[in-house]
């Protein structure tokens, strides 16, 4: 399952997709960035409500496949430009975090 396929099947909105063919393996949910860096695994889908610039560095360093911003959280254009530049995929979900996670679980 690629990030692009996940986005389509779950009806997520694409905010940035510089690497849509990236393969997904598992999922991690968390808003505390150090916690995410300690626990998320390579190629995970990372579901969070954090939308500040630091998520780009965290996603990039932890090697997650994509960020999914749940609960209808939006993200500034400057951060999206950074995501494109750094090769970090960002998807948007209007659903609550729980429902977002369920959709990911049922899809991957």
């Amino acid at each position: 399952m690629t990030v692009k396929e996940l986005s389509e099947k779950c009806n997520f909105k694409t905010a940035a997709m510089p690497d849509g063919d990236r393969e997904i393996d598992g999922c991690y949910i968390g808003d505390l960035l150090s916690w995410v860096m300690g626990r998320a695994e390579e190629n995970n889908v990372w579901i969070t409500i954090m939308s500040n610039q630091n998520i780009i560095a965290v996603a990039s360093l932890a090697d997650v496949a994509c960020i999914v911003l749940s609960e209808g959280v939006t993200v500034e254009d400057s951060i999206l430009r950074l995501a494109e530049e750094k090769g970090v995929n960002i998807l948007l979900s209007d659903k609550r975090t729980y429902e977002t996670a369920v959709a990911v679980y049922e899809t991957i």
Partner: protein
Amino acid sequence: MSESLTFHFDVDGEDFTSAGQASVQVKKNLRRLGIPPEIIRQVSIAMYEGEINMVIHAGGGKADVIVSENKIEIILEDHGPGIPDVELAMQEGYSTAPDSVRSLGFGAGMGLPNMKRYMDEMTIDSVVGKGTTVKMAVYLS
């Protein structure tokens, strides 16, 4: 590779949002050197945590990454307030970070524990009022 390679970075203490530039650069450099991906992930995350700590607590500092044949060392040095109780600071969940930092998703008290988790060796040399030096290493077998 017989001689060691050193990458030096100055960590800007003023700019919290762009913290991580040094770690991302280290990641690129290590990838170019053909270091295994899992080691790169460990080193760059530990380095990022250290960078964030220097920005939050010490007004910046400097970082050196030394790559030799059998290990990668990271030396982080700042002239911040120092850590009065290192053992306490190493406990998961203990944090002295301000609320402004917590609202960005940091300050969970996981920074130093993460560094230890990902590195094979870690020592903290801290003098209150003078600064802190963290030395870490991961072995390349």
